[in-house]
């Protein structure tokens, strides 16, 4: 545990040093930050925008905006949380432009039919991911998460896919902690409900193929 804590602390110190050098105009220090986080930013952007070209644009624009506004980064939060905040805003703007028929906002607190109370309670096969080939499984997971409202999808991606803490997610999305928890619960339950039809144990069987 102590070794892990030390590594986390070293990484944070290292990150701060890169940020400070980049603030002085050192592009190669900023390159270190780009290389550290570009995969994460691209994943987040593609999850929110659901479009690869948009995700590419968001990745570029988010880093550029971060670079231009480094002076405003106070160091009260992690650089990564600050960067995620920029990337989420850029992604939502892209989504809004593509969906002119409806507004997209993180403030939406949607109550839906399939809210927190599960409708179908079916046990799943012991290793549901092995029921499908890799490509098929990814298609199912993409299709399923794309069906969630943007506000739920974003919280789920930051917390459960990217591993941000509840506090970091709240900060990146400018939401309260109870709002993050409420959206996360509903996102998780809705995904579970929608995955039932693919992963449930066949009736009378033990789920093995």
């Amino acid at each position, binding site marked *: 545990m102590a070794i892990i804590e030390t590594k986390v602390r070293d990484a944070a110190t290292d990150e701060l040093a890169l940020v400070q050098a980049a603030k002085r105009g050192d592009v190669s220090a900023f390159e270190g930050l780009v290389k550290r986080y570009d995969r994460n930013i691209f994943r987040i952007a593609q999850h929110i925008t659901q479009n690869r070209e948009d995700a590419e644009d968001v990745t570029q624009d988010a880093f550029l905006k971060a670079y231009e506004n*480094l002076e405003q980064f106070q160091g009260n939060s992690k650089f990564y949380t600050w960067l995620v905040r920029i990337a989420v805003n850029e992604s939502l703007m892209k989504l809004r432009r593509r969906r002119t028929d409806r507004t997209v906002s993180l403030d939406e607190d949607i109550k839906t039919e399939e809210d927190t109370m599960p409708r179908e309670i079916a046990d*799943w096969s012991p290793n549901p991911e092995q029921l499908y080939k890799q490509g098929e499984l990814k298609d199912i997971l993409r299709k399923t998460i794309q069906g969630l409202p943007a506000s739920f999808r974003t919280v789920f991606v930051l917390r459960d896919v990217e591993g941000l803490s509840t506090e970091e997610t709240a900060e990146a999305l400018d939401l309260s902690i109870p709002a993050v928890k409420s959206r996360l619960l509903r996102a998780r339950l809705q995904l579970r409900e929608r995955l039932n039809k693919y992963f449930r144990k066949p009736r009378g069987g033990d789920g093995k193929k």
Partner: protein
Amino acid sequence: MTCADFLKELTDYLDAVIDESTRAELEDHLAWCHNCYVICNTTKKTIEIYRDSQLYELPEELRSRLEVAILSRCASKKKPSTT
């Protein structure tokens, strides 16, 4: 504890950020309520599958192209500290 109470605490339970006495109550509920047991397990599995699935990985070729584009755009801007 009712099933609705259980669901309310499910996120904190799965994230292991719950006090000892609430955890004991939830586990007591899980011991006899099959429906909540199934919901808890399948929700946990949902999170694990998404976490492990790497749905949108950035291919190395695209990554290099993006990095070049980002850094050349940064270099063409004035230094952040001179703003």
